[in-house]
């Protein structure tokens, strides 16, 4: 009951964020230099043809008329028609969405399954091998360009060993290289956060109390240390999944993975206003939803947070 009320309140709060994002997007994409009609027709096109296309696309109308038109169609649940492709924006996004979701979740799962144990071990045993491995991974993941790692992987596993396909998205085998590449990017951050959260939690008073009570070490670790450490980990995961769903542009491009990221790049390149706006709106939506989900997970993990959230609703 209280959860439902909480969710309703959050959804209502989202509306102004949404309208604000819409307005800013609408203005920002049009402030960028570049004329969609000219970009669609190509540099060699003649002025007469470019002007005709501008009229057909409605780009010659005053800006406020275009904005009102856009808002009206949004209210009717219509994201508009892509200037470049001439197809509904929503179809273009839905075409790419499954690939983006699959890549984001697989990459995040791989990152998590490596980072969590590694982070915990390196927090508990600061001088062990695991600690060194984890700092190497953190450093590599956050400092080596992902583009370069991707190409190296392709050359090792596709060109030399020929055990994995270089690019494309046809089978589960195709997701292996892009997801591992992407997970390297996420792993570093996740390991660091896990490690510091566990360390912080270890030194807290309630763990000290538990130790003094003579509880078993394993019980303390799982019930008292890890549970408290989960909050920052869930936060960072939410942010990571959110940005991955917005499109892992570099990874998608290198591995020819047909996700949202490559669509966004194309749409910006052609100044395809409705498509850019549609994708950004989608990303805004993803972040809002993920924020809510993360908050709910907080509440499930930590009763103190739950009490605060539920009560204020």
């Amino acid at each position, binding site marked *: 009951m209280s959860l439902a009320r909480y969710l309703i309140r959050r959804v209502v709060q989202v509306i102004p964020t949404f309208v604000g994002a819409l307005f800013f997007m609408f203005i920002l994409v049009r402030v960028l*230099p570049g004329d969609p009609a000219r970009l669609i027709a190509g540099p060699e096109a003649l002025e007469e043809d470019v002007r005709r296309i501008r009229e057909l696309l409605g780009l010659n109308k005053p800006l406020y008329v275009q904005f009102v038109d856009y808002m009206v169609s949004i209210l009717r649940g219509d994201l508009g028609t892509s200037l470049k492709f001439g197809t509904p924006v929503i179809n273009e996004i839905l075409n790419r969405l499954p690939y983006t979701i699959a890549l984001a979740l697989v990459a995040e799962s791989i990152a998590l399954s490596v980072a969590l144990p590694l982070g915990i071990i390196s927090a508990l045993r600061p001088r062990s091998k695991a600690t060194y491995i984890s700092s190497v991974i953190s450093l590599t993941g956050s400092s080596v360009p992902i583009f370069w790692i991707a190409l190296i992987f392709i050359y090792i596993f596709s060109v030399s060993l020929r055990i994995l*396909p270089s690019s494309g998205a046809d089978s589960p085998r195709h997701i292996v290289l892009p997801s591992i590449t992407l997970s390297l990017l996420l792993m570093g951050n996740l390991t660091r956060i896990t490690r510091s959260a566990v360390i912080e939690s270890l030194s807290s008073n309630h763990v000290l109390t538990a130790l003094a009570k003579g509880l078993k070490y394993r019980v303390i670790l799982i019930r008292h240390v890890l549970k408290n450490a989960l909050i920052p980990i869930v936060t960072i995961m939410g942010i990571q999944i959110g940005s991955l769903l917005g499109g892992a542009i570099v990874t998608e491009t290198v591995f*020819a993975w047909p996700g949202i990221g490559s669509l966004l790049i194309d749409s910006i390149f052609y100044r395809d206003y409705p498509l850019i706006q549609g994708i950004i709106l989608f990303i805004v939506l993803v972040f809002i939803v993920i924020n809510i989900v993360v908050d709910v997970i907080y509440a499930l993990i930590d009763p103190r947070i739950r009490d605060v959230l539920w009560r204020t609703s």
Partner: protein
Amino acid sequence: MNLSRKALSKTSAIVIVVIAIIAVVGGIGITLTRQPTPSPTTSPTPSPTSPAQTTVVTTPTTAKDTIKVAIGVDLDTVDPHALTTTTVFNVLRHVYEPLVWFDDRGNVIPWLAEKYEVSSDGKVYTFYLRKGVKFHDNTELNAYVVKANFDRWLDPTVKVPQRTQLGPVSKVEVVNNYTLKVYLSEPYSPFLKALGTYLFITSSRVIESFGNKTITDVVGTGPYKFISWEKGKRIVLERNEGYWGEKPILKRIEWLIIPEASTRVAALLAGDVDFAFNLPPTDMDRVKNAKYSVITPISNRIMFIALVPRGPLTDVRVRQALNYAVDVDAIIANVLYGLAVRPNAPLPSHAFGYADMEPYKYDPEKAKQLLREAGYSSGLKLVLMHPTGRYVQDKQVAEAVQAYLSKVGVAVELKTMDWPSFVAELLKPLDQKTYDMVLLGWGPAVADAHFYLYGQFHSSNAPPKGLAAAHYNNPKVDELLDKARSELNESKRAEYYREAIKLIWNDAPWIFLYTQKWFYAASPSLQNYTVHIDGEQVYFTKAYFK
């Protein structure tokens, strides 16, 4: 209290894990269910799913009959009348066909029209259509269908980006079932070439059902049928068994969209594709060493640095000095890895109307002397605008030019821009320009002097109206280009262009650079693919694997 909290946390942990697992599996499941029919002939390991085309699998001993081709850009549209991009023309030319086509020297030959006549005033073209040609939807090609295509092309409510390039068509008249007349409002000499390049014919059923909306149903008369298009991923074509002409050998063409050039090289070397378009010149040695066939076709794109006529650049001596100051041959050899040729005219040497001029040989001393004569012995400062990632090695070429010009006392400031902003800047009128020179490429679909010179040197195309980047304004050249546009006698037309080119060459409104070449590569077993006369398109209608 304590107990319930514990119980709750345990349940919640389980719930989170389960949700995560479901989400991951669900995500993979979505990709799996979206998986298209597997390609049975090329996968190196046996596919776990049953192949969709049993006909192919039952004959494992015959040669491979699916080709996989890596391209860098996805289709933007499949509407036969809205195409603008070379790659898209290339893919869809396997499906759609025009009325006339080109032989391997670039001469116009009959195609869907088996014969054509031109009236003596050059304003009426009569086309006699080939009989018994069927579209992929089994309807028949006739004069009414062709007229419907022309009418849609001319319909101002349809998005047709190249409409005016086709020529001043005023109306189309059906004479009988297989004959039609096309009327031009004035003579237009490149009409047949433009017709063969731009106007693809689709069936009347498609035109009726889509009207002025973007056509998404791909129906042509070509040697291949359009099977599927998974956006951002692949386009699949299959052999048209009822094709009216010579039947292709390969059964299936898969065009894989791989945006990153380095990945296209890797995909080729890994055996994932059999042919790859537009590879980075830096990888040429590696591809050669791996025994792949390297193809470096010459493109339709002329590269140049347009000089904006203001300040010191209004002086022809300064413009000529800049031409003497840049060692184009060295740039081709060292910056472009040999992927260019240098014509001695402002258009590629394979284009109709090309005329060879006296080259501006690299001569820094002469450049300095000209600058002195013009009163700039103490040097001058210029801004060079260039795009990045649009042309092969564009940024590097701009840097090389900067280095050469600094040697003769011209300090160049580079202004790097992304393509859309670059075009917006180009289109500004003369008094609002923020640069003095601009690196640009000009690649019309038809290799004919009209499309090069009219687009870049006719004063009516100066920005903001067109992209004639040098704002060239020479009434004599305008007159010659107008005359050539309506001249039907080819040798007279060539003579007009020669005169115009001579004037332009001496005026030096550009730093004349080079014609771009491409770098494609093919698996050594692939035979007999056709490089089209314009050099950028490659057709696989006669190709096979040995």
